[in-house]
């Protein structure tokens, strides 16, 4: 039982805006059900319930921005019993943080020495509403509230303040719409309730929303998030000679600035706290790419695998060889993790980065990992990730892709202790058995945390990665 709180979806998130409730008081919710949509500076995220229970009260109105840990709703768990009385050991810093985040330490499972609650446990507890669920959480979810309040920024509420009146719009009929359609409606300022749905069971599709926006048959429910072309082009990198012009962007300049600021704050903290060391290795991809071409030959396009997926899987598997690169450093103590939750930096159209989490990537096969990558990238770009996909990965990979630079020296995302970077795949002269030849190569880099590993241990990872990529059939 207890409060459903604003989750922490990444180390750089300090606050979030409740966009809409998908439940109302009296509703029974089940574990994994998406019950709210939250907007962070990076993306709108579907938030899943972490347990079965009944919604008692909604404490925050849509449109309200609150800090991480603020109670959003009271949910009475099914079959809840009073917790056993005990006091969890924790450092004063953790106690203060717990107080600030409105977390009851007695309810947090401590993984520190002697069962003490660490900073990381607290992060997990706060983000714990975003429990591990399958990536397809949103597929089962098609119900949207027709309207929510505008994006006003109210002062952060606290658990002591009286609960606000029931949220606006709950008495109106539900409109079935995909998350993508809902998002598009927000972007275009279209009221979903006024749109005629042509999808399955009358659900509103993206096309319906766009048609409605063009026809102007729905009054704007929100200020549309459309950026004037001039503002967009000034925020874009220098255009290539005949670059297509951009007419409308779903991201406002303010949002971009906030996103940049959030990333910058985290990176500044990383650079201040983490003594980085950097290693790089140029890896021959001839064998891996030839193998992949055979794998893809005769496959329908929907079943093809990209080189990026091979690099990601090889990374996840190779990290098992050097476990001290995979985990969290908190309170002066490193905690290795058994599986590799691989954070993948996805660049968004129009600027910005979102790190999506490929959970337990080390246990997946190549086809599954490729499917996860596609799914996550598509939805990250549509601004529709679920909270479990935004949870904190154990290590992050940044892949500049085929249009990027040759190599990247990454900045570690705290509390992680390593960041793996891949530049673009390029053809380079390569010496083999005393002969010069040409090979497709990639420069892999490792940014490591000197508090946990050193260049010697880090080198073992890059060596394992190289070896794994020479035997792609074993991935």
């Amino acid at each position: 039982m207890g409060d459903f709180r604003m989750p922490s979806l990444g180390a750089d998130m300090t606050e979030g805006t409740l966009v809409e409730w998908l439940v109302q008081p009296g509703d029974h919710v089940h574990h994994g059900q998406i019950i709210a949509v939250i907007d962070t500076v990076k993306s709108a995220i579907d938030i899943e319930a972490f347990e079965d229970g009944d919604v008692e009260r909604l404490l925050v109105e849509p449109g309200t921005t609150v800090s991480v840990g603020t109670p959003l709703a009271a949910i009475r768990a099914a079959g809840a019993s009073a917790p056993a009385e005990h006091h969890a050991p924790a450092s004063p810093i953790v106690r203060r943080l717990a107080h600030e985040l409105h977390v009851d330490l007695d309810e947090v499972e401590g993984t520190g020495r002697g069962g003490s609650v660490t900073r990381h446990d607290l992060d997990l507890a706060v983000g714990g509403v975003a429990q591990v669920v399958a990536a397809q959480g949103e597929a089962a979810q098609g119900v949207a509230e027709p309207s929510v309040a505008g994006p006003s920024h109210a002062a952060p509420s606290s658990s002591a303040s009286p609960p606000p009146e029931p949220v606006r719009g709950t008495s109106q009929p539900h409109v079935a719409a995909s998350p993508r359609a809902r998002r598009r409606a927000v972007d275009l300022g279209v009221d979903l309730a006024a749109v005629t749905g042509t999808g399955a069971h009358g659900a509103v599709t993206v096309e319906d929303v766009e048609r409605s926006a063009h026809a102007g048959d729905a009054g704007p429910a929100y200020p549309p998030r459309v950026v004037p072309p001039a503002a967009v082009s000034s925020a874009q990198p220098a255009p290539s000679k005949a670059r297509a012009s951009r007419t409308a962007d779903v991201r406002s300049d303010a949002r971009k600035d906030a996103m940049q600021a959030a990333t910058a704050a985290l990176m500044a903290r990383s650079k201040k706290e983490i003594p980085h060391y950097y290693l790089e290795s140029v890896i021959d991809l001839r064998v891996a790419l030839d193998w992949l071409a055979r794998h893809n030959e005769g496959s329908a396009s929907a079943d093809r695998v990209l080189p990026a997926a091979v690099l990601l899987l090889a990374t996840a598997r190779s990290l098992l060889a050097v476990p001290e690169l995979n985990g969290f450093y908190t309170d002066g103590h490193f905690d290795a993790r058994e599986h590799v939750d691989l954070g993948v930096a996805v660049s968004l159209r129009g600027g910005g980065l979102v790190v999506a989490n490929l959970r337990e990537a080390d246990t997946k096969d190549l086809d599954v990992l490729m499917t996860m990558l596609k799914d996550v990238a598509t939805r990250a770009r549509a601004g529709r990730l679920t909270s479990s996909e935004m949870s904190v990965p154990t290590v992050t990979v940044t892949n500049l892709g085929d249009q990027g630079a040759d190599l990247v020296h990454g900045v570690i995302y705290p509390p992680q202790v390593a960041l793996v970077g891949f530049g673009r795949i390029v053809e380079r002269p390569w010496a083999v058995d005393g002969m010069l030849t040409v090979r497709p190569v990639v420069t892999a880099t490792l940014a490591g945390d000197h508090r946990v590993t050193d260049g010697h241990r880090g080198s073992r990872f890059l060596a394992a990665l190289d070896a794994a990529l020479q035997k792609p059939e074993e991935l």
Partner: protein
Amino acid sequence: MNPTSARETVLELIGEIAPEVDMGSVPDDEDLRDAVDLDSLDFLTLVERVHEVTGVDVPENDYDQVRTLNGWAAYLAAHAS
């Protein structure tokens, strides 16, 4: 499928992937990866969508023929029924 309708189809599908781009301004002969900022995942998505819509599934070996809008139009005109 004639080149004109093939071109329109491909433009429409690019619009799904890069909704912020003005389709009227996509150049005919520039590599779409540069012109509308398609990465390898976007390009694969485009190939998949073209397959779904036209029935033509471009094999990897033919990717170089469909790097531009004109390339797509010619390829689909030749391969689509």
